[in-house]
């Protein structure tokens, strides 16, 4: 357990040190996405009403998944292939599965970090075009599964609530 916490400590130290580049990487991509699809195009009126309501959770999910994958798997590829640095971690008194689990948790932590940063930014950019309430978000997530519904319904919180 001590080894596990120490490994986590090491990874978080590295994350903290590389925070500016981490933030840049996390923020840039979703920012461009939301600017074009959530700000410019709705203004021009060429996007279906309610599209931005879908865009926000989508962007959030995308940036969380990508940032955590980039932050964990890319360094791991280098560790395994070129620098063999993974052996430095594998010599710690912890099982191999433990090292793997630690990497997953670091990925999750970074995903949450990315979500916390991206969510308000995207919200701010698109806010004029958003009609979201908490129940609306839950409902839209629930109804987004069957594809037939998606084409019929206009996505806004009011109609979701009515149904």
């Amino acid at each position: 357990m001590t080894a596990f916490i120490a490994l986590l400590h090491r990874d978080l130290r590295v994350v903290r040190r590389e925070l500016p580049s981490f933030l840049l990487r996390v923020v840039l991509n979703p920012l461009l996405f939301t600017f074009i699809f959530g700000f410019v195009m709705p203004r021009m009126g060429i996007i279906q009403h309610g599209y931005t309501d879908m865009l926000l959770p989508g962007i959030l999910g995308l940036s969380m998944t990508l940032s955590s994958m980039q932050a964990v798997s890319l360094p791991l590829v280098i560790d395994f292939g070129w620098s063999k640095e993974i052996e430095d971690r594998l010599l710690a008194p912890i099982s191999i599965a433990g090292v793997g689990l630690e990497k997953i948790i670091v990925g999750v932590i970074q995903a949450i970090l990315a979500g916390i940063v991206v969510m308000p930014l995207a919200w701010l950019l698109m806010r004029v075009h958003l009609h979201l309430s908490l129940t609306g978000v839950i409902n839209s997530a629930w109804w987004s599964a069957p594809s037939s519904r998606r084409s019929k319904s206009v996505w806004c919180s009011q109609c979701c609530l009515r149904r």
Partner: protein
Amino acid sequence: MENLKNYIVENVITVRDLKKTFKPKARKGVEVKALDGIAFEVPRGEFFGLLGPNGAGKTTTIGILTTRVLPTGGVAQIEGIDVARDPVSVKRRIGVVPQVNNLDRSLTAKEILLFHAEYFGVPKHEREESAQRLLERFELADRADEKINGFSGGMVQRLKIGRALMHDPAILFLDEPTTGLDPQSRRAMWDLLTELNQKGLTILLTTHYMEEADQLCRRIAIIDHGKLLALDSPAQLKRSVPGGYLIELQVRDGANGSFGESLRSLLGVVEIKAENDRVRIYADRVEGLLANAMRLAGEQNVMVTDAHVSEPSLENLFLHLTGRSLRE
């Protein structure tokens, strides 16, 4: 008798009939035997050497003993713990200096030491203290807060050893620690390792340098093609080569011919090689051989300007055992 010996001398490394076979994907159906039944024991406090050419199985042996490679057969134990069954307990007891530079590239030199100790649960004040001490001992203190990108080969090597020592291991494994170092750094590394061993640390080292094994190790295992060829102290090993003793005489004139021929009659001489002003006498270790040779030279009015006696070398032994030179 064997049991009795084990009671007196505690073996910290036990290897019995160790086997490892690879099936390389590039060559289908071919099985490569990296290790083919190796066995040895290392008592506490010993400086043990694995000597062999590249591809002999040294790194595989160390890989298995340090839990990084799974054996295909046989037993490997560290302080009585099976490395395949309980790798975590084994990892607590060993320090490893691998061949490649696997130092943490995201951290500074000092952080590398501190975090390594933290992995092993060394208390904070203790690890701060020993990191500072090791950085000073290894002459890295002035670059402690730098990342390792700009470090020289010698510095990287010292830091790797420092890292391995941070959690106070019982056994230190070094995989070719002086490969790629300049002669001065190599000498410093030898002094360092000798010092560590004198403090009671058990050291297992692999090398393909004869002089390194000769200088450092109390016992040497010579391996080639995954098999153990010989295991003994350097002096004993060298003595086992017939005619491994070498006397080199520098003479002013009249070296070849009769003088060389007359040397052949001396007791213990195996072979004489005379070229220009130099006579090489290959011989078994016999008392008074040099004196007899000098007497013969005096009798024949041959002026000997210099004499050099060299102990039998491991190089000769390797040639004798495998039929090929260590440096292919």
